[in-house]
């Protein structure tokens, strides 16, 4: 069954482009261009996946997630952005998005990312993987939950390969793991990213200005 998708982006042109690229493989049930429109729409339609622009005129994508998550916990969010600024990306992930891809992503890869998120997996772009590796840098003294505040060597390895442009399948082959295991590692990193109280995360995201 095709995943039911709501598209939230304030640029009509961009929405039209995405519609054209993914309409064959997903079922686009609704579109919105503001936080105020998106929240009631998503609550009403209860889609599988919301493609969410990080920047919206009346607040960020975080606002949409905050307005929906309580009532519709099953709705998954995939963040789309041209910004690539670390504080935006980390912010929307920590708010609850299950993945982040750049708007320059190809149609085929976007379809793939939507399907992955619909199944409950996490989707990291190479750039996001780089951010996360930087933010979870080893060697800092920690005060919080050590399990949540650190990446395991294996998670680090997987993230590094994502940053280097490897797909899950290629990572699995290279590390002699199953694709399911790779997905489990990425989901685990996502959970840490969302739940870690590691204060470096927010500080790092604020300080960081991406080229």
């Amino acid at each position: 069954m095709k995943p039911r998708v709501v598209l939230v982006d304030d640029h009509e042109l961009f929405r039209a482009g995405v519609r054209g690229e993914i309409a064959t493989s997903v079922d686009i049930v609704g579109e919105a261009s503001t936080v105020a429109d998106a929240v009631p729409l998503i609550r009403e339609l209860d889609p599988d996946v919301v493609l969410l622009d990080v920047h919206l005129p009346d607040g960020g994508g975080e606002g949409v997630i905050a307005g929906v998550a309580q009532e519709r916990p099953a709705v998954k969010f995939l963040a789309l952005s041209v910004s690539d600024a670390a504080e935006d990306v980390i912010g929307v992930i920590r708010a609850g998005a299950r993945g982040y891809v750049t708007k320059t992503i190809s149609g085929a890869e976007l379809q793939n990312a939507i399907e992955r998120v619909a199944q409950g997996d996490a989707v990291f772009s190479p750039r996001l993987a780089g951010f996360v590796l930087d933010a979870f840098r080893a060697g800092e003294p920690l005060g919080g939950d050590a399990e949540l505040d650190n990446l395991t060597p294996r998670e680090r390895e997987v993230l590094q390969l994502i940053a280097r442009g490897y797909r899950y399948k290629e990572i699995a082959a290279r590390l002699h793991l199953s694709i399911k295991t790779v997905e489990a590692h990425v989901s685990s990193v996502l959970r840490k990213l969302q739940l870690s109280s590691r204060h470096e995360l927010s500080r790092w995201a604020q300080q960081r200005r991406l080229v």
Partner: protein
Amino acid sequence: MSALLFERSSDDRVIAGVCGGIAARLAVDATLVRLVFAILALAGGAGILVYLALWIYARSRRALPAAALFALASAAILFALGLSGTALLGATLLVAGLVTVLAGGGSLRPGGSLPRLGVALLIAGAVIFLGRHGASGDLLAPGAVAGALILVVGPWLWQLTVERAERIRLQERAEVAARIHDSVLQTLALIQRHAGDPPRVATIARRQERELRRWLYGSGVADAESLVAALADAAADVEELHGVPVELASAGDAALDDRARQLVLAAREAMTNAAKFSGAAEIAVYAEVGSDAVSVFVRDRGTGFDRAAVAPERRGIAESIEGRLERAGGTATIVTTPGSGTEVELELPRTEA
């Protein structure tokens, strides 16, 4: 001064409509105003004097007699409070100074000039008034002088700050406009001219996107100063020259010293090779700055190649990549097999070799 631009009330009047006028102007109950005047009238007749002053001002709009009456009223209040003659002199000077300042251009509002006489009177008044009045005069006098100065000079300084902020804003705006003109508008013009050539349009748009992004989120300087910025430059150049998108990801960053520059040049060569020979639709570059080494990975999903089959006179890989890294004290590893793409791994220890 706008609070003084009241008209005497013709329908709400007991004597001359002054209280009614003030009440209307300040939007309060007239009885309240009358009560204040009545209480002031008990203080040596000050209320009566103030009333007369306002009446005169409202009738003739002549400030001087009104101000004089005000000063008298103030004196009456101070006398009623039991102040000495010296303190009264100080207070009078204070009021006179204030009046002079106000009369000399209303400089309590920003933009006015600073009448020196007024300032001098204010300071002298403050010194005398507070110097003679009360046991803590020694402590209060300098404070009063400072207060008087702030009262008069403050708005003027504030004006300067506002002007400065405004100037900076205008300057920034001009810079943004110049930038948009030089880059975005030029690019849009280029895109229109090449509308029939989609790959070229895509390349132009992508380069513009990179430039704009660097300007918006980066350091804003033309020459890259960090490793990641330099890699982004190299990626943009390769993209433009060969029309293959280069995705750059990074964790951490480092200063661009000579060795790092060699690393960037080697990475650029690897990107160029991938763009020219691999046939891949996209190149992935990842830079990681660790505590003891800097690593750059350049990966494509192209055809790959057989090292042994590369003609010996083709010196690109040996010289530009491996030789360069070796001289800088690092290592270059090239992993490739025909049919499964290529990954060039460049590593440079951070401590000087």
